[in-house]
């Protein structure tokens, strides 16, 4: 069974969202998602400064088996990307909720986070897939 930390928020499409102290949101893909995709070989990240709307595909994670779009869980402006991943995409496999984060954004509307799934809701999504 994959790990689903309780302090994070989630989407049905397997992104996780962490609210940071500076008001930014950190986004990555869940443990379940990295397990399904398998060994990561490449990550394509958005450009810093780009604005994204909820549901936009803004990154791609690629394994040997699949290339999967990562969707913006929330509208906002990309403020930072995890450029270390281009050298070491396998970090997403080893530490999906930590060093394996993908990008950070400044949300347009802080309240949008509350509409995302909590850990319990997300574990139901994962459950339903199995």
């Amino acid at each position: 069974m994959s790990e689903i930390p309780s302090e994070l928020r989630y989407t049905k499409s397997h992104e996780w969202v962490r609210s940071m102290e500076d008001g930014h949101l950190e986004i990555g893909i869940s443990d379940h998602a990295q397990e399904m995709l398998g060994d990561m070989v490449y990550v394509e990240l958005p450009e810093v400064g780009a604005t994204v709307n909820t549901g936009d595909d803004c990154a791609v994670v690629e394994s040997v088996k699949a290339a999967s779009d990562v969707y913006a869980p929330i509208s906002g402006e990309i403020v930072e990307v995890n450029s270390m991943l281009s050298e070491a995409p396998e970090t997403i496999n080893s530490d999906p909720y930590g060093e394996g984060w993908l990008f950070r954004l400044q949300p347009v509307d802080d309240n949008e986070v509350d509409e995302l799934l909590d850990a319990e809701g997300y574990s139901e999504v994962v459950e339903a897939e199995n």
Partner: protein
Amino acid sequence: MPFIPHTKQEIEEMLAVVGVASIDELFSEIPAELVSEQLTHVPAGMTEMEVARLMTARSQQDGNYINFIGGGVYEHHIPAAVWELTTRGEFYTAYTPYQAEASQGTLQLVYEFQSMMTSLMTMDVSNASLYEGASALAEAVLAAVRVKKGINTVLMPRTVNPVYRKAVNSIVKNQNIELIEIPFSIENGATDAAAIQNYSDRQVAAVVVPQPNYFGVLEDVDTLTDQAHEIGALVIGVVNPTAMALLKPPGQWGKEGADIAVGEGQPLGIPLSSGGPYMGFMCCKQKYVRQIPGRIVGRTRDEQGDTGFTLTLQAREQHIRRSKATSNICTNQGLMVVAATLYLALLGPQGLRRVAERCHHNTNTLAQKLCATEGVHRCFNQPFFHEAVIRLDRPVADVLSAIEAQGINGGIDLSPDYPELGNALLTCATETRTIDEIESYATHLERILSR
């Protein structure tokens, strides 16, 4: 003669295993009203001997013409070993190498092909080939538009082979990509480099640069490349692979080199064969490796640490990425790649260069001999390679018909595609043409034009 090995007894035993009384019963899930009667437009089967007779007659019906036609497809000498080996059953009847351990022959060969093509083009990456030249150019246009997200305009010189321009348009128009034609100088047949600057305030995804161009004229590739890069566009080189043994390859054009190089691989050991199968090649800079379509082979290790080869970057492709794939293409022209790899290995760098030089020498000789006749002139006074445009004093189609009656295919009538050039004839003489054949063409032309 359907190549079915079953004996009567086997059929009965197999039906018994399945538990049906007849073969027809195997089709019982098909609605009865859909089962058709006998075919009417397919003749009865033939034996191999009868087929041999038929095909020999058909092939002989088409005669044996001395060929001075080019237009992107060239008659070169093909070493005997090329097709002897290419049609070995192990290459000829293998599938796409998805089961890598059972396909190391094809995979290593494609890796060697990719190595040869990147070196010939001085690019970082080559794919395992595409269908042929024109559709390869279309795929390059689509790749460039993917790189330049949101920019849908591509500049296409009028000096690019007209059928390439038509095919590219039919392939990319459904994705709302606009191809803007860049004019050429009527004096020298080269693309008007200044025209690119007109678009500096527009957003352009890519500029296509042919070398040599359709007329055989050598483009000022350094200037075109730099100007394209100045307006933020990618450069797609469309080149003749034989020529790249002699001419500056796309990776060395201008300050930064072309970004993508494509072309028709037919000159590398593939027969004329009425137009196919040929092979399109595509090379690019490393940073665009995930934007190009088609199969790519990589070198890796096996479980025991030994070197082996496998298809890689498959996540871009249709069988995994489905509607978001870089292209719908599955095929690479595997067998043609075998031929091209063998051809390049047998000729080597110096052999290929000698072929290129001889083609140029012969075309130069041909142009001089043809222009010795009154009323025949070179169209452009510009460096050229491999092909020449000759202007006649009367309609080219009539002259070509008369030449054909003498057993000579004289070239391509340019007037339908380039009316601005008048009675223009595109002609070429590869290394396969002898001086006698060239002189015979000139003699016949002189006689025909003197009538």
